[in-house]
């Protein structure tokens, strides 16, 4: 008996798929890194990993933020939400431990009941996992449109290195047939291993991380494996791309991994948001892409490689179409959300993030 085996490692669907609409969301509050340092590091002002991070307000969570990003994506997609057959939210800060964020988001944006709506979790690549699944659902002709969202209101242990950077934000993508897309997804590839670089046990409030172990064996290993394999299988190099977006836990890592794959600082600049909004975890690569789409021109090619601890990377090769020009202005841009800014101090941040024992 012969087993069918694909000759290529690439994930390519039966029919071409693409991004029909996209939308971002970032809350308005900002906690400067110097504020964290004021409390925990004797007020040092140099050597901080980012400038400031976005913080969700008291009435915000992954569900409310996903609803707004989804509404922006649908506004650009110009389709009725009732055509969506999946609404998939990927996050590591879902408001419920059991009960999907996705059902509430679906109801709020006006889908019908004929949908898939489970939640996704894979640390910072939960959103891109959902995106791959959406490609499969649409690419296999099981559905015409699916919505994949990566969104987070990430938490860091008080005083820990991650508290400087763990931010809130993300983006939503309507996936559909390539004929209707503002950007076509040429192919994707995922590289996953069991790597314990960062985790949170059930019931624990804050995650644990492996310090320097999160670098080379985790972040760099998986991004370069996924990114390089995608490039090799497609027969492309960094020079064939206008832009690249990488997962961004801090300012330095994405710059270094970009260079490792042959990309320049210029190519990653529009999608490098971590200095001003922090690491938005499951939203990071997704919102880096939305910021890039906000400025990309028809014909531009974008490489996106996410990274989720645990660990794995999803890599996508995307090409922008003519339709970007007519759809881009139909919703708020990523930069509009970033510009909307109210600075808060550490005490306000602690209150907003529920770090005070109220009972």
């Amino acid at each position, binding site marked *: 008996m012969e087993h069918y085996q694909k000759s290529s490692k690439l994930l390519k669907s039966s029919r071409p798929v693409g991004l029909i609409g996209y939308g971002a969301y970032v809350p308005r509050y900002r906690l400067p890194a110097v504020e964290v340092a004021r409390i925990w590091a004797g007020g040092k002002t140099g050597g901080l990993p980012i400038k400031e991070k976005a913080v969700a307000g*008291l*009435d915000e*969570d992954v569900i*409310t933020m996903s609803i*707004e990003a989804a509404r922006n994506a649908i506004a650009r997609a110009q389709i009725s939400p009732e055509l969506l057959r999946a609404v998939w939210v990927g996050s590591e800060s879902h408001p419920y431990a059991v009960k999907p964020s996705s059902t509430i988001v679906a109801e*709020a944006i006006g889908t019908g009941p004929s949908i898939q709506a489970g939640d996704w979790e894979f640390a910072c690549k939960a959103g891109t996992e959902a995106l791959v699944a959406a490609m499969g659902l649409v690419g296999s002709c099981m559905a015409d449109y699916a919505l994949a969202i990566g969104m987070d209101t990430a938490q860091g242990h008080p005083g820990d290195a991650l508290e400087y950077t763990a931010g809130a934000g993300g983006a939503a993508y309507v996936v559909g047939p390539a004929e209707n897309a503002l950007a076509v997804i040429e192919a994707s590839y995922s590289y996953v291993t069991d790597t314990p670089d960062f985790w949170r046990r059930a019931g624990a409030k804050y995650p644990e991380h492996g310090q320097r172990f999160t670098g080379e064996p985790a972040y760099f290993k998986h991004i370069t494996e996924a990114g390089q394999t995608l490039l090799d299988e497609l027969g492309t190099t960094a020079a064939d791309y206008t832009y690249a977006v990488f997962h961004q836990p801090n300012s330095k890592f994405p710059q270094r991994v970009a260079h490792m794959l042959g990309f320049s600082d210029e190519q990653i600049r529009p999608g490098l948001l971590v200095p001003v909004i922090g690491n938005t975890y499951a939203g990071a690569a997704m919102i880096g892409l939305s910021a890039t789409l906000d400025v990309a021109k028809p014909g531009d090619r974008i490489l996106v490689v996410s990274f989720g601890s645990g660990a794995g990377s999803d890599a996508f090769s995307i090409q922008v179409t003519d339709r970007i020009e007519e759809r881009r202005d139909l919703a*708020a841009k990523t930069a509009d959300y970033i510009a909307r800014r109210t600075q808060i101090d550490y005490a306000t941040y602690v209150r907003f993030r529920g770090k005070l024992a109220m009972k």
Partner: protein
Amino acid sequence: MEIPRHWRLKKERYGLVGEECPHCSFKIFPPRDVCPNCGGEAKEPYVFSGKGTVYSYTVMQDGPAGYEEAAPYTVALIQLDEGPIVTAQLTDLGEEPIEIGMPVEMVTRRIRSDGDERGMLVYGYKFRPRL
């Protein structure tokens, strides 16, 4: 635990879905049994744009049970562009002062927990200064 009640109201609350009277085209929010304009039966769903202006507002220094941790918070009467006035909290206020007449837009936010921290989450409409 008031689960059935919140579940009944979710469509209106999540998406500002009201009614349009089939007899006189009056836009109605919140939905009700009888059209306040012509007295006829009103049932057709109507999705409001979410755009409106502040008609009045007040800053609450203390909240009742379930709202204490949000205080101080701002409650407002919002005149929707389509006509009805709706009661809602204002959110995402920056340094700009609130003014009667200022343009706002609807966002879906977490309103409260039903009961205590183990209860279901209640989401609904609030309004913020237009982006």
